């Protein structure tokens, strides 16, 4: 598959644009190597490395490499570990061609000076930081001989605690993405840094006299203290310059609500660990937003039921569109989007937060069930006042969020489960309201008041700006337009200059996480594509530090703040990846007293809007939300994220207009119909996905698709931005949806063929899953009354029910247990596995044929009423059956059992009969139907994990329990002659899982957590009755329903 190949046309063009064809750049190198394969590739890369052009090229692109780095730098941050040519020495471990008997010649390229901390063949881990929407998450980056190959969570970082979300995992692929912009572009031709600094600098000097009149800087949300300082200085020197922020998927309403409630744009964060009862109002708080990883971890800990701990928190979800959070809810109530906000109002009334309470509470509610639920929930919240938590959707209307703030305050949750701090982001002088800020900017541009516009950090307003502002036209009026980003995009096309950005793994920098913690960013590798950081650009342009590196800027910034022995503190900070316990870095906790009457005002505002809404029943509210995988669209070019099934729809490579079954019927729409959405005269075409559990009167279309200029992502899915205006960013009441009579085909990884095979497939699948007891469920009550009820349901055949003599596993016996009770379906495990195990991407067309390659998948089942179904998530890796059906049928013994009970898969022995896959009841085996692994793009070879074979066409592959990690741990223990420390060895999925839903280890050894889990009465195996004796088992999904609502529906 050439899914990751840059289009050759483009490269050709750029090569042609080279001033002297004799000189090389990465493109040409790639061109030369394009037809090479595997080992051969490395050889030729080495040969090439000898040529004078290449040396010359290195001098230009990687000056630090060619001339040794200053000793001081080498010591402190080990620049030399990131030298380019070392990458080629990866040949000593790089997985390449399989299956040939005669080895081609290879070269070994040792260091010239070997850094003392590098042991060739062993990875190093560096603490660094990745940001999403400006917010930081501390991570550890695994580096093999200078090649970052994998991201893990940083256990010491409060936003991670060792876990990651899908975006963290995907970062390494973006780093190497050959489609990243690779050279400065000036009016469509290759430009040079010198020329850019010349032109922009000249312009600035001219404007400096006018105090920077006409200078505008547009960035995303910025939390970096260093950049904040830079911008401050800058605005001090250029008082008339303006800095604008635009984060398309930022928490605009959150800020507005805080402003309304507290008079300042405070940050709100939660402590799920302290909450006994949680009410989520249309909010996917557990898997969205900057704090999600931490929130999941905390929440999961309140839900982990074990025989020795029969306590768990209770979660209510009132939502219009099913969310991951909703799948965990003990009670889930689907309501139309506007009605959810009304529910907040009703609750406020019921709790006496606003008037209209008492007996009349709930009258505002239209839905009968909501009426019944309201008092119960209110009572439950009251009963747990102080240990309760009401969470509003960060995209919900400010009014709703104000009410929720008020409710939490009334319940005394504030300060216990809800916390307010000063804003994490840096607020520009012109206010926190980014929408307003954009309006100003456009107004200025239209008025011709803008001469120089710097768009830093990959902002892409031409794609993301509110549609009613007319940003595109306005932009043309700016004399000098500069765009800085990882990719050439819609915006860069309209700019005079495009400056390639350095990836965060190539950059020095800092940022704050959701709780304000300052996290440091250090590069794992020199910029592959000569990218530059925003910090550098600001320094060079505005601080006249022509040769400034972001390293120096960041370091200098902290020199002033890190008290005591700076070097020591700095080293520690770099080592930990964060700057802790230094007052200067803490965010002042805000005394969050609500402005009087704010709640009442919000309430009446909502009542007003309510009247309009209720006027015409049957009206549709369209929700616009960031896509669960590609966010606001900036991640669209990342193939891992594109192919990662979206939790609810299991859809890949597309977004969809989701509607509930009932509404679909009403609007005469079926799955995969094309429809036209109209709102305020604005139109968008999109294909329909009928999503069980989505409330009547609510449709959702995610942002981030329909990119017009995004390389391989161009044209995927449907662009929702044209509907998005400054009046309504998130919820569009009064939208019309009209069938177009055209069809579309979605590539989904579950029940692909809902139509082709009869639209009934999805409910049928759900009910079959229930009938086959794939997901065993129960309630806390049952469990308390009868701890063994799961064990008694099990149909595990007794050991003597087989003719075969039992196989003894002495020594280690690897096994895994998965706690369905806390799995949110966030899919971090899937993408972590993909990164760890060199799993290829196959593309939409192949997914359509049902050939996706993920080794672990998250199965999602709906059962019951499709308008209000029970929704379950079930991660399914290889079960590593002791009586593996796959092994018996393999004619060449390509899959067999290890002494430790692993179901080994030997790629280089496999001939590809696919019999094993047919005979696998869990269908966890994956086959390389075509040559999926991209070996044509040398830079992508750098991404491969050298400890895992890259599979060739025609061989079977599957989850190995990360056998490379197991073997590494065993070897270390043998070399050091000590046992493997319990619970230290983790699989990739386990390590990434935010909810600690997966444990792995030696089930022969009671010290390991997994052994305890398997001994728990909730433990059961999938399809045990087949006597496959799976080593992977599950803990049943236990819910904690409110007795007062039991009648509503059975055990969830």
């Amino acid at each position, binding site marked *: 598959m050439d899914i990751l190949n840059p289009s050759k046309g483009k490269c050709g063009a750029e090569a042609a644009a080279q001033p002297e064809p004799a000189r090389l750049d990465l493109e040409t190198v790639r061109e030369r190597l394009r037809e090479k394969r595997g080992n051969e590739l490395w050889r030729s890369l080495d040969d090439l490395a000898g040529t004078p052009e290449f040396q010359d090229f290195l001098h230009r692109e990687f000056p630090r490499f060619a001339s040794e780095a200053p000793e001081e730098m080498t010591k402190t941050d080990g620049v030399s570990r990131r030298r380019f040519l070392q990458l080629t020495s990866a040949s000593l471990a790089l997985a390449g061609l399989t299956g040939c008997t005669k080895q081609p010649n290879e070269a070994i390229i040792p260091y010239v000076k070997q850094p003392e901390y590098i042991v060739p063949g062993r990875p190093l881990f560096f603490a660094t930081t990745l940001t999403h929407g400006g917010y930081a998450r501390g991570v550890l980056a695994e580096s093999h001989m200078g090649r970052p190959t994998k991201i893990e969570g940083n256990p010491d970082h409060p936003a991670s605690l060792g876990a990651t979300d899908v975006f963290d995992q995907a970062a390494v692929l973006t780093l190497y993405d050959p489609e990243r912009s690779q050279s400065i572009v000036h009016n469509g031709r290759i430009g040079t840094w010198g020329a850019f600094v010349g032109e922009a600098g000249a312009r600035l000097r001219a404007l400096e006299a006018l105090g920077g009149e006409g200078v505008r800087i547009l960035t995303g949300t910025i939390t970096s203290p260093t950049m904040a300082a830079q911008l401050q200085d800058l605005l001090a020197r250029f008082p008339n310059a303006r800095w604008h922020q635009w984060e398309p998927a930022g928490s605009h309403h959150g800020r507005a609500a805080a402003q309304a409630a507290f008079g300042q744009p405070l940050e709100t964060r939660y402590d799920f660990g302290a909450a006994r009862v949680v009410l989520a109002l249309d909010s996917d708080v557990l898997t969205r937003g900057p704090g999600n990883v931490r929130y999941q971890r905390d929440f999961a800990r309140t839900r982990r039921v074990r025989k020795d701990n029969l306590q768990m928190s209770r979660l209510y979800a009132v939502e219009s569109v099913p969310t991951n959070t909703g799948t965990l809810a003990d009670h889930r109530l689907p309501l139309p989007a506007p009605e959810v906000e009304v529910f907040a109002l009703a609750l406020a009334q019921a709790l006496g937060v606003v008037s209209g309470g008492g007996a009349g509470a709930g009258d505002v509610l239209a839905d009968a069930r909501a009426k019944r639920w309201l008092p119960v929930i209110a009572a439950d919240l009251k009963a747990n006042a102080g240990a309760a938590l009401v969470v509003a959707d960060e995209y919900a209307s400010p009014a709703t969020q104000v009410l929720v703030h008020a409710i939490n305050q009334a319940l005394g949750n504030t300060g216990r489960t809800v916390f307010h701090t000063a804003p994490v982001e840096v607020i520009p002088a012109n206010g926190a309201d980014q929408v307003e800020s954009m309006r100003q900017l456009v107004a200025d541009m239209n008025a011709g008041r803008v001469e120089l516009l710097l768009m830093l950090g990959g902002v892409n307003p031409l794609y993301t700006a509110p549609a009613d502002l007319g940003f595109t036209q306005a932009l043309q009026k700016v004399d000098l337009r500069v765009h800085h980003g990882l990719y050439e995009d819609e915006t860069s096309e309209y700019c005079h200059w495009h400056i390639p950005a350095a990836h965060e793994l190539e950059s020095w920098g800092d940022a704050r996480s959701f709780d304000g913690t300052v996290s440091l960013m250090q590069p794992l590798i020199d910029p592959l594509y000569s990218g530059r950081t925003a910090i550098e650009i600001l320094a060079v342009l505005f601080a006249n530090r022509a040769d400034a590196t972001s390293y120096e800027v960041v370091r200098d910034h902290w020199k002033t703040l890190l008290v005591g022995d700076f070097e020591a503190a700095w080293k520690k900070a770099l080592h930990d990846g964060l700057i802790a316990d230094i007052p200067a870095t803490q965010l002042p906790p805000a005394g969050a007293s609500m402005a009087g009457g704010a709640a009442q005002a919000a309430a009446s505002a909502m009542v007003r809007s309510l009247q309009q809404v209720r006027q015409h029943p049957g009206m549709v509210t369209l929700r616009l939300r960031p896509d669960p995988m590609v966010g606001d669209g900036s991640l669209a070019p990342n193939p891992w994220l594109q192919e990662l099934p979206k939790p609810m729809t299991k859809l890949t490579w597309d977004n969809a207009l989701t509607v509930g079954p009932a509404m679909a019927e009403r609007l005469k729409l079926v799955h995969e119909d094309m429809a036209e959405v109209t709102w305020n005269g604005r139109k968008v075409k999109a294909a329909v996905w009928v999503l069980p559990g989505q409330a009547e009167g609510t449709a959702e279309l995610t942002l981030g698709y329909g990119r017009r200029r995004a390389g391989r992502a161009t044209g995927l899915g449907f662009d929702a931005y044209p509907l998005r205006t400054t009046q309504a960013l998130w919820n569009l009441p009064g939208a019309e949806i009209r069938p177009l009579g055209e069809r579309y085909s979605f590539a989904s990884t579950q029940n692909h063929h809902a139509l082709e095979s009869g639209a009934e497939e999805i409910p049928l699948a759900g009910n079959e899953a229930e009938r086959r007891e794939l997901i065993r469920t129960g309630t806390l009550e049952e469990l308390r009354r009868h701890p063994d009820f799961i064990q008694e349901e099990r149909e595990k055949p007794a050991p003597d029910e087989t003719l075969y003599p039992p196989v003894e596993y002495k020594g280690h016996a690897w096994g895994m247990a998965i706690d369905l009770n806390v799995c949110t379906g966030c899919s971090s495990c899937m993408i972590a596995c993909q990164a760890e195990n060199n799993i290829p991407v196959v593309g939409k067309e192949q997914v359509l044929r049902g050939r996706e390659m993920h080794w672990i998948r998250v199965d999602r089942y709906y059962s019951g009423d499709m308008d209000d179904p029970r929704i379950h998530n079930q991660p399914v890796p290889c079960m590593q059956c002791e009586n*593996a059906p796959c092994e018996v049928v393999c004619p060449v013994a390509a899959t067999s059992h290890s002494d430790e009970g692993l179901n080994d898969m030997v790629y280089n022995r496999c001939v590809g009969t696919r019999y094993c896959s047919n005979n696998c009841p869990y269908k966890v085996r994956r086959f390389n139907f075509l040559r999926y692994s991209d070996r044509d793009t040398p830079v992508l070879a750098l991404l491969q994990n050298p400890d895992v074979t890259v599979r060739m066409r025609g061989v079977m592959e599957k989850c190995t329990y990360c056998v490379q990690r197991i073997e590494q741990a065993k070897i270390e223990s043998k070399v050091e002659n000590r046992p493997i420390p319990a619970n230290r060895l983790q699989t990739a999925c386990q390590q990434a899982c935010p909810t600690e839903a997966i444990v792995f280890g030696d089930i022969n050894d009671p010290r390991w957590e997994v052994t305890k889990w398997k001994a728990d009465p909730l433990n059961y195996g999938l399809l045990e009755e087949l006597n496959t004796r799976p080593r992977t088992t599950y803990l049943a999904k236990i819910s904690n329903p409110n007795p007062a609502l039991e009648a509503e529906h059975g055990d969830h």
Partner: protein
Amino acid sequence: MSAHPHHHRPPIYGLMAEFHDSEELIEAAHRTREAGYEHIDAYTPYPIEELAEAIGHHHSKLPLIVLIGGIVGALAGYGLQYWVSVIEYPLNIGGRPLHSWPAFIVPTFEMTILFAAFSAVLGMFFLNGLPQPYHPVFNVPRFALASRDRYFLVIDARDPKFDREGTRRFLSEMNPTEVNEVEH
């Protein structure tokens, strides 16, 4: 059946009588044997059971050969599987025993058949001395009809009772359509 070089070589290979009817040939064959001729052979367009006895060819050794072939095949087949799965590279395959004899039956059976079939065919060639593209009888032009609808009796010149004239007379008495001398 082909001429033995060591003892002295008679001038001709033998005498061939042609009959147009199987009955006559069988009759003739019996009489020739009774007359004491040992080295005789008969040629027919299709198998005739009595004829074999008539010319003194009683039972075939072929069944024994095939039996041996079959047994060898069976042993080889099972032996191979046992050696591979239990001795050479014992692997835990889906928790099944190393010596999964029920699974080994099929290949064993097939090997038995294969070896037996080969020994049947090769054995037949061996016993019949085939291939033998050259044979004196082909020197007689009429012999081409042996593969159509004519029946031939040949008395070998090496037969102690053979006498070029006497034997010719003896054959003519059984009213064949023709009697020919067979050149070497």
